[in-house]
């Protein structure tokens, strides 16, 4: 016997995130006013910067690609009841896998390399998340703590490798050699050009298509396969899973490894698609923002796509903003992004009780009206 009516889906996935986003924008607007700028103008520049011209679209979708991968990664673990904070480190190590494959298997033809590089990313990312997963499943070490620690370990490991192992002789910058040209993921504007369509050049590349395909696959996996069912069961009620003969530890490990593999796809975009070499800190916080993306998208691939698009817009529009209005520094843009994450991710349930109350009252009146 519940005291309130359950919210319908359109409110849960539509109205609530919208209210949270609105609040974030209002608070951001107040900040903008406080430093003496016009918030309306700021919003205009932000939107124009993100969607106003062809090149902006390309950049926005390029950022979106990263957020889709890290958002999906968080969501899969979350369906198993796990808070994977380690997408950052998993993507970083995944990048190592991609780079090694591209540098040392460069004799392979491109179509085979497409598969091999993807496998390399998956194996490295999954292996990196296997250790926290094993510790959680078999030793009860909390995955939040261990994945955070593994971010630091990954960071140090990669610095060591880039400085001491992967840095080409004679180079002063801690980054790997360039990967061979024929192995790079083609840019969308190049593909379009080959098809006779003129497009402005941007970092948007083939991995955006991967992201869409993989979103669909994750959706199928979570809701239409036995393993997805098992993962959701473990996440919702581990005791019931044990009763059903679904050993929770096993599915914790499976979910975490899939999560790590999904994070590592971000490296395909960054290493194979844009930078064409392994850079220090190429993950640049995308792993952490992925948490907010997944929460805002209600851990559903379609929601994650929309949330990723929002954050892609904030990244690209924000860059434009600090360029256009000098008083709004890059730090200010980070603050705005932070506010969006705060209100949509960390405080996503803030409006829920009130909205539930209002909706319940409305439903009761409807029911009473029908009864009369």
């Amino acid at each position: 016997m519940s005291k309130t009516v359950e919210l319908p889906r359109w409110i849960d996935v539509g109205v609530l995130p919208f209210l949270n986003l609105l609040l974030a924008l209002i608070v951001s607007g107040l900040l903008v006013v406080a430093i003496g700028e016009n918030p309306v103008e700021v919003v205009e520049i932000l939107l124009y910067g993100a969607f106003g011209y062809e090149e902006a679209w390309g950049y926005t979708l390029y950022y979106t690609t990263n957020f889709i991968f890290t958002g999906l990664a968080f969501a899969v673990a979350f369906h198993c009841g796990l808070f994977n904070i380690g997408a950052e480190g998993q993507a970083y190590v995944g990048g190592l896998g991609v780079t090694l494959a591209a540098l040392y298997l460069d004799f392979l033809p491109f179509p085979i390399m497409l598969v091999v590089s993807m496998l390399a990313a998956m194996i490295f990312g999954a292996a990196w998340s296997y250790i926290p997963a094993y510790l959680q499943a078999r030793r009860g070490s909390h995955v939040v703590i261990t994945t955070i620690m593994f971010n630091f370990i990954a960071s140090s490991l990669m610095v060591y490798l880039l400085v001491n192992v992967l840095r080409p002789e004679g180079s002063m910058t801690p980054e790997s050699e360039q990967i061979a040209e024929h192995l790079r993921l083609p840019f969308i504007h190049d593909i379009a050009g080959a098809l006779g369509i003129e497009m402005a050049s941007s970092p948007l590349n083939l991995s955006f298509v991967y992201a869409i395909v993989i979103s669909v696959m994750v959706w199928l996996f979570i809701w239409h396969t036995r393993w997805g069912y098992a993962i959701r069961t473990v996440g919702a009620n581990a005791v019931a899973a044990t009763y059903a003969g679904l050993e929770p530890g096993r599915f914790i490990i499976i979910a975490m490894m899939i999560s790590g593999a999904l994070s590592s796809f971000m490296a395909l975009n960054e290493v194979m698609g844009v930078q064409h070499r392994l850079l220090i800190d190429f993950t640049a916080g995308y792993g952490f923002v992925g948490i907010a993306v997944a929460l805002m998208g209600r851990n559903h691939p379609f929601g994650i796509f929309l949330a990723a698009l929002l954050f892609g817009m904030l990244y690209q529009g924000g860059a434009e903003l600090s360029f256009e209005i000098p008083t709004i520094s890059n730090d200010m843009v980070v603050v705005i992004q932070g506010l969006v994450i705060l209100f949509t991710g960390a405080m996503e349930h803030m409006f829920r009780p009130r909205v539930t109350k209002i909706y319940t009252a409305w439903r009761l009146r409807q029911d009473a009206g029908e009864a009369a």
Partner: protein
Amino acid sequence: MHQMHGAGETGAVQPAIELRGIDKRFGAVHANKEIDLKVDKGTIHGIVGENGAGKSTLMSILYGFYQADAGTIHVDGKLCEINGSEDAIAVGIGMVHQHFMLVETFSVLENVILGVEGGAVLRDGVEKAREELKRLEREYSLNIDPDAKVGDLSVGLQQRVEILKALYRGAEILILDEPTGVLTPQEADHLFRILDTLKEQGKTVVLITHKLREIMAATDNVSVMRQGEMVAHRKTAETSPEELSELMVGRKVLLRLEKGEANPADTVLNVDNLCVDNAQGVRKVKNATFNVRAGEIVGIAGVSGNGQSELLEALGGIRSASEGMVELNGQDITPGKGVDAAELRRRGVAHVPEDRHRMAMVTAFSAKEAAILGYEDDPAYQKGVLLDWHAISEATANMMSEFDVRPNNPDLKAANFSGGNQQKLVLAREIMRDPELLLVGQPTRGVDIGAIEFIHKRIVAMRDAGKAVLLVSVELDEIMSLADRILVMCDGAIIGEVAASEANERVLGLMMAGVDPNEAKAAEGQA
């Protein structure tokens, strides 16, 4: 009409509690409909009704957990506004919850003064409380050591601590919500003696229960609730269990199940010297040895928490055995030795666990998702690498119509079904697999009377189809009406077996309290 009303108010006996027109809705659920209730001072007043009849809601309104949408509460003739438990305590209402609200690591004394310590420094308050506690214990013969740690006390004694807490706060009216659910019959009798003492001292007691036997034994007056309405008030002396159950359900009910003789055949389940430890390494099942044959129902009786749950979970493949052996049709299925819950299902062991919400289903899932739990790898549910939700939906709808699950909607969230319908869905899932052995725990906990009848019939039908059934229940009535043989567990050990035909509540009750079966039967003979 008006005159009668007036006479009631100015009459000689002022009711301790009077509720007028209490109305409460939760969303679409009308939990209390215009409830009127008078509880006379210095009486024990029973409130009976099925689960979901609105008893608990009504008492929660009286104790200030919920606020009524309409209606008034009068205590000792005075109109009261009760907006929280503090208000209820202030007007002298105390409540003993079904689930105790005690800090196990604190002593009895510390628990009693919790919230009414009387100042920042404990010592003065504690000394005063100790004196007061002694007086209360003497007056009501509660027999509790104030310095004992609550975690070390038996459930019956913990309940007395709850009563003491209420009395210490000056309760004149005591509400007990399903107080005997966790007690042996003997402990329950002791509780009723305490309630009698309270009554003699002028206190008023409201007893909420669904057990008619307790109403008949302990109360002066009884009110019956059905589907949110107060349907009848009776003097206990002038009514009968038959009348009350008819009032509760709204139609005639078979209190006793009619079933034929059992025809036990070959041994299906053989348990030999089985020991099970919990996660802390405490031995919960001690050297259990018994068997279950095809075509019989073996019941395991016992007070909740005496190892039955662990035994059932071990047989269901969820816990490992520390010692001993389990065989199914002569094959080794000792839990933890390579045979897990999934493998047991494949071998024909179906398991309806005791705790529906914790174990038998994921309440956040839809009914069709709940209906494949444990059987999700059935080839009939697969379409290539994907699950065939269309086939699953059809199978679920089939289960639902076979077991009369309402509403028959495989897409509805499991949490939105009533307890009885959830349980029927779980039973359908397990029984329709046509298993060799059915393990059932608390099949009718939180299930309304209509569904109980149905569930009992289905379990007996399993037996009559030549299957082995092991039933664990803390409801003696259920064990006695369903089982063909009854094993009694106490403190992890099976202390004896009684044929259902020879069983009665007193013998079983004594055995459940740990008395040797022969002594128990002898004691019964003398009584």
